[in-house]
C-alpha cells in the first residue's frame, strides 16, 4: 500500500510522469488563496481563471504530443497570432475556421516532415517556422484589428444551456486530446517512439512495424492544430486579429508541459499532467491578481514558486 502511494507520488512504475506533485501544489495554491482572499472559489473567479488559462491549456496539450516523441514546437506562439489574423480577415466563419485549421495543419506538416523525414533538429525546424509565420502574419495584419466572425466571439464569451462556453471548450479539447493520446493506437505509438528516443533505442519501434515517421509528422500536425484552436479562442476573447497576441506562448506551453511532469526527453508524460501544469501557471498569475501583489515583485514570486514545484520533481535520470 505504502509502495503504491510512493509510486504514484514519485511517478515510478508509470509512464505518466510526476503529475501528482504539481497537482498537490495547485491544490495548495487554491487552498491558500481561498483562505487568504475568499474570492478564489467564487464562480466568477473560477470562470475567469478558466478563460484565462484556456489558450495556454489548449496550446500546451498540443505541445504535449511533440514533447512525447522527444521533440519541441517553438512555432505555436506565432501560429496563434497567425490564426487570429486569418480569422480577422473578414468573411464567413464556415470558411475561415476550416481555413485556419487547414493552414495550421500545413504548418504542422512542414514542421513534421522537416523533423521526421529531413532530419532537422526540432528546435531549428520550428524556430525557423516561427520566423516565417511571424513575417507572414505581419503582412496579413500589421497591427491589431479586423473583424472576427460573430460566431467565434459568441463561442468564447457566450453561454449555452446555462453554462459558459469556456466549459464546453474545455470538455471538447480534453476529449479530443484524450482520445488521441490515451485512447488510440496513435497515442500509444507516440509513447513508444518517445521511449525509444529517450532510451537510445531509436529503431526499436520502427523495427516492430510502427510507422515512426508518419506518427511524428502527425504529432507536429496535432500541435499546430491545437495552437490554431487556441488562436480561435483568443480571437474570440480579444475580438480581433493581433500579430503579437501569441508572443511567448511557446515557452509557456513548454513550461506547462514540463511542470505537469512530462519529460522533455520523450516517452513519459500525460494529458492530465499538462492540464495541471497549465493550471499551476494560471493559478500563479491569478493568485497574484487576487492578492493584489505589486507588479514589481510578481515575477520574482512566480519564478520562486515555479522553482519550488520543479525542485520537488526529482526524476531518476538527468535530462532536459
Amino acid at each position, binding site marked *: 500500500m505504502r509502495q503504491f502511494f510512493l509510486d504514484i507520488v514519485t511517478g515510478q512504475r508509470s509512464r505518466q510522469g510526476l503529475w501528482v506533485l504539481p497537482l498537490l501544489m495547485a491544490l495548495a495554491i487554491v487552498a491558500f488563496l481561498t483562505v487568504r482572499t475568499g474570492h478564489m472559489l467564487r464562480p466568477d473567479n473560477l470562470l475567469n481563471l478558466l478563460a484565462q488559462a484556456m489558450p495556454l491549456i489548449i496550446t500546451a496539450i498540443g505541445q504535449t504530443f511533440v514533447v512525447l516523441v522527444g521533440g519541441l514546437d*517553438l512555432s505555436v506562439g506565432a501560429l496563434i497570432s497567425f490564426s487570429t489574423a486569418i480569422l480577422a480577415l473578414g468573411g464567413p466563419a464556415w470558411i475561415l475556421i476550416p481555413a485556419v485549421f487547414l493552414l495550421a495543419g500545413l504548418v504542422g506538416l512542414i514542421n513534421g516532415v*522537416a523533423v521526421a523525414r*529531413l*532530419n*532537422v*533538429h526540432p*528546435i*531549428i*525546424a520550428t*524556430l*525557423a*517556422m*516561427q*520566423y*516565417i*509565420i*511571424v*513575417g*507572414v502574419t*505581419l*503582412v496579413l495584419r500589421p497591427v491589431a484589428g479586423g473583424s472576427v466572425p460573430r460566431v467565434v466571439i459568441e463561442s468564447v464569451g457566450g453561454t449555452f444551456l446555462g453554462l459558459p462556453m469556456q466549459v464546453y471548450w474545455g470538455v471538447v479539447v480534453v476529449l479530443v486530446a484524450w482520445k488521441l493520446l490515451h485512447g488510440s493506437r496513435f497515442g500509444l505509438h507516440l509513447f513508444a517512439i518517445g521511449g525509444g528516443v529517450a532510451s*537510445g533505442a531509436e529503431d526499436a519501434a520502427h523495427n516492430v512495424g510502427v510507422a515512426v515517421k508518419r506518427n511524428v509528422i502527425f504529432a507536429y500536425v496535432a500541435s499546430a492544430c491545437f495552437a490554431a484552436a487556441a488562436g480561435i479562442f483568443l480571437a474570440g476573447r480579444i475580438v480581433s486579429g493581433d500579430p503579437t497576441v501569441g508572443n*511567448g506562448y511557446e*515557452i509557456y506551453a*513548454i*513550461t506547462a508541459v*514540463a*511542470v505537469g511532469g512530462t*519529460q*522533455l526527453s520523450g516517452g513519459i508524460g500525460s494529458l492530465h499532467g499538462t492540464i495541471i501544469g497549465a493550471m499551476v501557471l494560471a493559478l500563479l498569475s491569478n493568485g497574484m491578481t487576487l492578492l493584489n501583489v*505589486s*507588479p*514589481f*515583485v*510578481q*515575477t*520574482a*514570486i*512566480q*519564478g*520562486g514558486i*515555479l*522553482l519550488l514545484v*520543479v*525542485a520537488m*520533481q*526529482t*526524476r*531518476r*535520470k*538527468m*535530462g*532536459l
Partner: protein
Amino acid sequence: MTGMLRSPVVQRLLKVPPSYVVFALLLAILWSARPNMVNFNVMGIFIRQVAPLGILVLGQLLVMRVRSIDLSGGGVILLVNYFIASGTFPGARLPFFIALAIVIGTLVGFFNGWMVAKRRVSAVIVTLAVSIILIGIVQFLAGGSPPGDVPAYFGEIYNTRLGSVPTPVLFWFGMAALMWLFLSRTIFGRFVTAVGENAEAAYFSGVPVERTVILSHTIAGLIAGIAALVQTASISVGSVRVGLDLPIVAVAATILGGVAFGRGDGGVWGPTFGVLSFALLFVVMTVFGLPEPGKQIAQGVIILLAAVLYGVRTAKAN
C-alpha cells in the same frame, strides 16, 4: 566511388555543420552586393555586435553537450546590467563589477548544475525558473530604483581596438579558442563527451557524471556573467526587461553549429560560426533594406534550408 565516400576527408566534409555553409553563402552575397563592406574594419564591427551572444553560446554548447540546457543566461545578463547601471554599489569600479559578474554567473551556474545533476529536475524548467527569478529580482529592485546609465569607461573599453580588430571580438575569439582547447585537450573534455553520449556508461567507466554536469553548468554560468559584462559594455543604459529569445537564439546557433544535446560534432567553432551567421544574416538583410516581414520570412527560410541540407546529408552518411 564508395571508397572515396569513405575517405575521412569526404566524411568530414559531409558533416560540415550548416553554420559554415550559411556563413560562406552570406559572405558571398554581401561581397557581391557591397564589396567595400567586406573588409576587416567593417566586418570587425558587425562581429562585435554579436560578441555577447557568441560568448553566451560558448557556455550553451558546453551544457548541451552533457544533454542539458541553460536558459538562465538572459536573467544573468539583466541582473549584472542592473547592478552596473543602477548605482546600487556607490563608488564601485571596474574590477568590482567584473568580480560581481563572475560571482553572480558562477553561483547561478552552480545552482543550475546542482539542481540538474543532484536533484535530477528538468533542466529546461529549472534554468527558466532561475531566469524568471533573476528578472523578477531586477524588477523588484527597479521598482525601488530604476536603472540609469552604465559608467562611461565600459563604453570606452568596448570601443578599443587591437590593430584593426575590435577588442570585444578578440576577447570572444580568445575565449572560444580557450574553450576549444579545454574541450579537445583536457580530461574534462573527454568526460563531457562521455556523459553526453551515455551517462550510465560514463558512470560505469568511472567518470564523475554529476560533477561533470555541475561543472559544465558552473562554467556556463561564469561565461554568462562574462557575456553580461560585454553586453553591458555594448549598451550605455540599464534596462528592466530582457528578450526571452536570447537563450533560444543561443540554442539555435549552437545546433546550427552542429552541436546538439549529447552530440558535439561542430566542436566550438561550429556554434561560433552559427553566431557569425546570425550576425551576417542581419547585416545582409539590413543592407538589402528588406521590410520587417520579409526579414523574418527570409531568416526563417534560410535557416530551414540550411538545416534541411545538413539533415539530408547526415541522414545519407549514416
